[in-house]
């Protein structure tokens, strides 16, 4: 096998499996396209290159959106490589098939199944193929470190280290077992010889690759587990970082857009002549469901758009109303038989025997993402080729979508990944309306355009976290433990992880099911997805049961978690950090909640103060998280802190309501987010149980709304079953 193919293999080596039938495919020639002939750097692996001067460059196939992945992933690779961290450079991998995130497919597809080493190569290639075919280069699901990092980066680093060791041993004519590595060097202690990685890199590429190299014992880590500074912060504090909205191209014009106000509405016509003569205006473009003005500047485009007479057709949903949907939810919950996803024991019988079951219904609204950088996309069509610059959680899918809209071959489309001014799910492949709009306009004009959505468009034409209700019924036995847990929730779509409604508690009879309903509202993945709902539902209700049983909510939960040591550990720790059990002053209260999601287990505790007239102050939040292993504790803590703020803001104020088919809220004046003044003191601790590595980007979100509601109950006896909690004057509602 030639050198190029070996490189190709490393690239695929980081990828996924399942399709063992592909086992006999040769390692594809086309992967070796990326061998970069004429480049003085030498590729040891797709995700790693070592230059003759010893600089190690790691190509990260995931988007940086603030989660620190451009630091954490290279740390994992550098650790196994035994690299010298200051010599490590990080680059965003381009949006090309060879960087398809096969590890994600493997991670989600076959879990932690240990692949026999003889099959590894084939499995990897199969995984790569699948990822490539579905254009998958996704950053989401708290998956980067779990899959690309653990399955890909680590192995690439370890495999490369082996090659360097082999090359050194051959050069010195010594046994490989006599050699060792340290900070970017191979050493041969018996003779005192040493050689830098850069010096060995070329020879190493001719060595034979071990596709399943052993990984380091954690006790020997020098890079992972340390709070190393993020590599990309200097550019962020000086303003030199270029987000999608900062792209500037020669001759570029700016585009402002107004969508049909009602979901699925149509732009029938517009009177372009009315604005054509206005300063700077270049074009008026009517899209199927929107109108666009292209002008020299964004302000000019916005002004002209405001004055542009447009006729929209409302389509079928001009009467849709989220208030009525709520009533429909009640109807659903009391009517149709649910689809049952989990059943333990004899739930129906036990429930039927319950005289007077404890019952509660919880409710949550639609939510928008509101990334700080409004969605935008820059596109340029020239000479039959389309270039796209945009913040996306999946550059490959963006390329495929762009090609589809422009009716071009994928090869004719290039996506230039840029850092994202926030993601939270908004820029995932199923939510690319902002790319589609920009591409359509770019195909009609001879210059590059940058389309920026106003904040109003961004909030009113998002893909929303589903609204829903969840009904619980339970009965407590004579030992005060729950005998039955019956939960039925509304499912209006985007409810793929049915496990999110499961509970870790030992309750002998359980039934968990859902009733389905369709709405015209575009739905989207929103940081922590289903867990953002069920975390509030289930952890509120378990708290209600504890109070019914007259028990302390902490010890009640612990009593139901006998066989769950990891859950018990995080719960106890979060409670300790808050000082659980100290007698509360009047008006103060503490609440707890626990969730298992994205492979991690997280408990949060909240302390609040509430006045008699409902004025609420969230004072402190503590979190204890067991993600198995922590790569960079400082980045990890930042993710949890951010998740807590995200979840708290939503619990307090977040609501998208729809009237006459139109989103009511439009900007931060009516879609409020948390600000510094409202932000509690937050303490985060990690428990590294050594279990399989879990995600962190989303796990801070799910428990916090319930912990807050539980704290309010403890302080005031008011049970909040409906989000958001605050109404006018920022006082607690009902």
């Amino acid at each position: 096998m030639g050198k190029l193919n070996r490189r190709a293999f490393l690239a695929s080596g980081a990828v996924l499996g399942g399709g063992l039938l592909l086992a006999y495919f040769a390692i594809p020639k086309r992967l070796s396209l990326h061998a970069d002939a004429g480049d003085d750097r030498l590729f040891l692996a797709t995700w790693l290159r070592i230059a003759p001067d010893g600089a190690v460059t790691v190509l990260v196939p995931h988007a940086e959106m603030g989660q620190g992945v451009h630091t954490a992933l290279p740390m994992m690779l550098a650790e196994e490589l035994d690299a010298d961290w200051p010599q490590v450079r990080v680059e965003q991998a381009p949006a090309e098939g060879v960087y398809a995130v096969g590890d994600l497919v493997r991670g989600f597809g076959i879990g932690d199944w240990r692949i026999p080493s003889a099959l590894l190569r084939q499995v990897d290639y199969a995984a790569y193929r699948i990822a490539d075919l579905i254009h998958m280069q996704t950053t989401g699901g708290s998956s980067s470190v779990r899959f690309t990092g653990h399955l890909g980066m680590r192995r690439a680093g370890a495999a490369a280290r082996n090659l360097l060791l082999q090359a050194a041993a051959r050069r010195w004519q010594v046994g490989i077992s006599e050699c060792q590595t340290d900070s970017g060097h191979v050493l041969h202690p018996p003779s005192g010889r040493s050689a830098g990685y850069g010096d060995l890199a070329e020879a190493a590429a001719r060595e034979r690759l071990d596709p399943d190299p052993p990984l380091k014992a954690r006790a020997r880590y020098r890079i992972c587990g340390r709070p190393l500074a993020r590599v990309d912060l200097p550019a962020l504090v000086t303003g030199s970082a270029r987000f999608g909205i900062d792209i500037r191209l020669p001759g570029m014009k700016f585009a402002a857009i107004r969508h049909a106000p009602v979901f699925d509405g149509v732009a029938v016509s517009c009177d372009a002549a009315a604005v054509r003569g206005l300063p700077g205006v270049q074009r008026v473009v009517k899209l199927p469901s929107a109108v666009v003005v292209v002008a020299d500047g964004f302000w000019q485009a916005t002004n002209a758009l405001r004055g542009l007479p447009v006729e929209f057709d409302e389509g079928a949903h001009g009467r849709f109303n989220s208030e009525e949907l709520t009533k429909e939810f009640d109807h659903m919950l009391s009517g149709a038989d649910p689809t049952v996803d989990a059943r333990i024991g004899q739930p129906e019988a036990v429930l039927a025997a319950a005289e007077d079951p404890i019952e509660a219904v919880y409710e949550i609204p639609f939510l928008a993402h509101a990334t700080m950088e409004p969605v935008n996309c820059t596109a340029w069509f020239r000479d039959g080729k389309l270039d796209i610059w945009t913040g996306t959680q999946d550059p490959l899918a963006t390329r495929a979508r762009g090609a589809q809209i422009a009716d071009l071959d994928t090869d004719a489309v290039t996506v230039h990944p840029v850092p994202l001014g926030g993601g939270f799910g908004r820029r995932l492949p199923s939510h690319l309306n902002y790319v589609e709009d920009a591409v359509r306009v770019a195909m009609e004009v001879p210059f590059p355009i940058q389309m920026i959505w106003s904040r109003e468009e961004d909030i009113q034409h998002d893909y929303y976290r589903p609204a829903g209700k969840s009904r619980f019924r339970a009965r407590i036995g004579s030992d005060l433990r729950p005998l039955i847990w019956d939960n039925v929730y509304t499912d209006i779509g985007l409810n793929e992880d049915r496990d999110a409604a499961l509970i870790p508690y030992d309750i002998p009879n359980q039934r968990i099911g859902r009733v389905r309903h369709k709405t015209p509202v575009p739905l989207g993945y929103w940081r922590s997805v289903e867990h953002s709902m069920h975390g509030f539902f289930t952890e509120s209700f378990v708290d209600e049961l504890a109070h019914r049983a007259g028990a302390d909510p902490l010890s009640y939960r612990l009593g139901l978690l006998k066989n769950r040591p990891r859950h018990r550990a995080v719960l106890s720790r979060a409670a300790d950090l808050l000082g659980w059990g100290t007698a509360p002053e009047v008006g103060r209260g503490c609440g707890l909640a626990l969730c298992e999601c994205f492979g991690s287990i997280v408990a949060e505790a909240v302390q609040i103060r509430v006045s008699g007239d409902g004025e609420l102050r969230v004072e402190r939040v503590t979190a204890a998280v067991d993600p198995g292993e922590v790569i960079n504790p400082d980045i990890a803590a930042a993710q949890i802190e951010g998740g807590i703020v995200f979840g708290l803001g939503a619990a307090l104020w977040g609501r998208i309501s729809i009237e006459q088919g139109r989103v009511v809220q439009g900007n931060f004046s009516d879609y409020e987010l948390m600000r510094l003044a409202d932000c509690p003191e937050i303490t985060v601790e990690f428990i590294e149980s050594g279990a399989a590595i879990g995600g962190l980007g989303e796990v801070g979100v799910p428990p916090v709304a319930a912990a807050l509601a539980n704290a309010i109950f403890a302080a005031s006896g008011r049970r909040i079953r409906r989000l958001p909690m605050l109404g006018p004057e920022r006082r607690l509602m009902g």
Partner: protein
Amino acid sequence: MKFKLMVNEQVRPIDADEATPLLWVIRETLGLTGTKFGCGIGACGACTVHVNGRPMRSCVVPVRAVASAAVTTIEGLGASSMHPVQQAWIDAQVPQCGYCQTGVIMTVAALLEENPEPSEDDLARQLSNLCRCGTYTRMRKAIRILRRS
């Protein structure tokens, strides 16, 4: 309308409608993209610059209003070396996505210029910028570092 604007200690000739918000003149005419667009209604602070040393949300300031003023953007704040606020922001590892942070840094820099020892309450009142990533804990930490030095 043609006029001159003093930005980051340089006089720049501008040709723009006088009602254009300063934000777009900075980002598009002058190509200084460190100042960000977040809401366009003065509600988020991403577009904060200094006008005669005072923090202003440039998305709601018509450019005519600053024609004879000195404007500083993030590019001018730490032009020669990092401003102490920028350094503290790195020391406390504040930014996540970073999109809001140039506006936050400009706000804090102006605030500390005026009052080097702000109380928590002063801060809460005056630092009302939005950060969707939720970096407020780190902002507080960075400001504590600044207070100490």
